[in-house]
């Protein structure tokens, strides 16, 4: 992946960090047909997203093609402080992957 496919915003409110992230991905279910050829479009979707902060895995999400194109994910966790890094990485069903990190504000 040459282009950055992940955008992250992490904000600290009190003790809780809220992370919002946007990924760029076609998220094909594998059930959709190409209107021109009538053939099934092969499945191509993110199936695993992990979030890490301070060396700990905060969240692991397993997805299907039922997540919308260019997925949005937001979640919250306790125990981080401002300036800590949050790393988000994804893997898709065709072997692609990407990761990015951002500092908590």
């Amino acid at each position: 992946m040459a282009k950055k496919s992940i955008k992250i915003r992490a904000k600290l409110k009190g003790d809780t960090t809220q992370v919002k992230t946007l990924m760029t991905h076609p998220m094909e279910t594998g059930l959709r047909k190409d209107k021109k050829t009538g053939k099934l479009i092969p499945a191509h979707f993110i199936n695993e997203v992990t979030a890490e902060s301070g060396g700990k895995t905060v969240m692991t999400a397993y997805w299907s093609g039922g997540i919308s194109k260019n997925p949005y994910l937001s979640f919250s966790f306790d125990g981080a402080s401002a300036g800590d890094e949050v790393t988000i990485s994804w893997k898709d069903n065709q072997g692609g992957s990407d990761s990015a990190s951002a500092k908590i504000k």
Partner: protein
Amino acid sequence: MTTNIKRRVFLKGSVAAGTVGIAVGAGLLAPQAVLAAWPKAAFEAKSIDDALKNAMGDASSSASDAIKIKAPDIAENGAVVPVSVSASLDGAESIALLAEGNAQPLVATFAMGAGALADVSTRIKMGKTSDVIAIVKAGGKLHSARKSVKVTIGGCGG
């Protein structure tokens, strides 16, 4: 005229990319099986019970008021339905999100790690008007909540 030519080129390009995609997809069937962490059986299950058995280890759940689902009453575009799930249950370990009317109802599972709160938002596809179901695993038990979403244009067909 020039735009027309460009369009032709573009179409050709996308068809070519499509065939490559199929080849890659077929070649990767084996590694997919190795990806054991991803609960394939759960996501490919056609019924909610099967999906839950594979994803959460149990199909029975009790309705709970502690789980809140935030989703629109009417979704104009089924391809993008914003859904938020939050649970005020102690020791919530994981959340499963299902769209009852989808061909493959299980949409996503979230496993909470260190310090994570049972509060996630994402956007899902819905094929038709149905219930969105959230299952939260807390203290070894499954708790569920559902909310009906009316979909005017389905997001799974094509």
